[in-house]
């Protein structure tokens, strides 16, 4: 499967990556090569095979509905780039 420039731009948008103009051809080529590699999968017949999402056939464990985490705002916001009055700041969010 070969990608073109507009595919790469769309993927970069979905992934919120601002690619440099000059890097786009390289990325396009790399991604196309990887997808060519991956296309080899199509040669295998997988009709009726159940996908394996988890290696171990487990079931989700349930947690008791009890408060175990108390206020840790100061500790956790130490690593935050921009806060004010306990809020995380981001460029204005327009609805």
């Amino acid at each position, binding site marked *: 499967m070969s990608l073109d420039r507009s595919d790469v731009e769309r993927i970069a948008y979905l*992934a919120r990556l601002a690619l*440099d103009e000059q890097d786009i051809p390289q990325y396009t080529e790399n991604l196309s090569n990887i997808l060519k590699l991956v296309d080899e999968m199509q040669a295998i017949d997988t009709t009726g095979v159940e996908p394996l999402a988890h290696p171990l056939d487990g079931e989700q464990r349930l947690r008791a509905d009890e408060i175990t985490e108390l206020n840790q705002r100061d500790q956790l916001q130490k690593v935050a780039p921009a806060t004010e009055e306990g809020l995380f700041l981001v460029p204005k969010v327009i609805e």
Partner: protein
Amino acid sequence: MHTKSLTELAAALNSGTVSSVELTQAFLERITALDPKFNSFITTTPEIALEQAKAADAARASGRAGDYTGLPIAHKDLFCTEGVRTSCGSKMLDNFESPYDATVVAKFKAAGAVMLGKTNMDEFAMGSSNESSFYGACRNPWDTQRVPGGSSGGSAAAVAARLTPAATGSDTGGSIRQPAALCGITGIKPTYGRVSRYGMVAYASSLDQGGPMAQTAEDCALMLNVMAGFDKMDSTSAQRDAEDYRAKLNDSIAGLRIGIPKEYLSDDLDPQIAERVQAAIRELETLGASVKEISLPRTRMSIPAYYIIAPAEASSNLSRFDGVRYGHRCDNPKDLMDLYTRTRQEGFGAEVKRRIMVGTYALCAGYYDAYYNKAQQIRRLIQQDFLAAFNEVDVILGPTTPHPAFKLGEKSNDPVSMYMEDIFTLSLNLAGLPGMSVPCGTVSGLPVGLQLIGNYFDEAKLLNVAHQFQQVTDWHKHAPTGI
């Protein structure tokens, strides 16, 4: 002192030959003196280490020493360490001092370990050479023009250079086993779910597993005793009792049935590596094991399957890096889109961006069936191959890698050729099976590894076989010249 294995150091501490503080100081000095050559550490933690060493000596003095009390450990830099930088080898987390400890880190702390520092790695664990690290390439102590392997390259190099007797690694497609092989040390990737992933920054959630890296199987068993166990903070943690992984090390392996996949020892394999692996097999036969050829027909398919599943999961796992709550943030974002795109463009390296994009693409509507779903189906077929094989044999053996360490820069422009290096290791992660690499010789002076693959939760057996192998060979004792 620095050449001693973890087990030997434990004995030295217990006999009072050396104190934990002395040991710690010795390793810290070695790191300072030698690591500039290898760049295996991103952060060293001398103050914390000496505090922990003092506490360990005190515990030992009052008779409260456990198996790991006072022994050094280095953590791969994707294990969150409270108050200490946890960078994942990335600019994105260069400024991130984790507010909490990973479960693995907490377990080592509780066991009295002494943390020397955080080791270098491929950025966000994506790579097989440690060349994609924001902190620069790590160099193989056997030949500093060559890669140590990846993504746990720093941990492997640090153990190989005897800067630490033990280091934690993580393995998603071979990232413990491959660098262990290229650096001539021992490493084990446990069964998926055996070691808690809480606090181990996620790359591919259904494939990642943390594990030990050290000089010997016996050392790895000691480490695994600390690391393994159910964790209620991790929904994928196996609800299964821990065991003493040293208990069966000395069991005889007479009657052990070994399987050699014909796909692993094909005509394509470098004959020198093939020869080293055959020699290792012969050693095991002299210990009473029997060998037969088996087949894992879908081995080759593990590459495309992995390179869809892992990037797909990674593309989602890495979406949280957006400059809002922690980590890198671009300067003066002019709007929300700018905040996201520029933060992520600046924070992530090329290989990470490639994998995010491949993963994003594979999950897009219209491609999900052909890529992600198909890969998960192939994954089940690969698991079936292994389960069928384990009906006939107890362990599966083969080379860990198709080549010894390659030169720095040799493959960094060709991602696909880099991916092909993982051919022997990927399929275990897809199936969730445990796998080990032990040194089994050199090719052109560079170490190569023997890979042992076990059935689910058979770590003790793998460690037993490896330990028996290491009783009759001494590859694991070899260190690079000058170390």
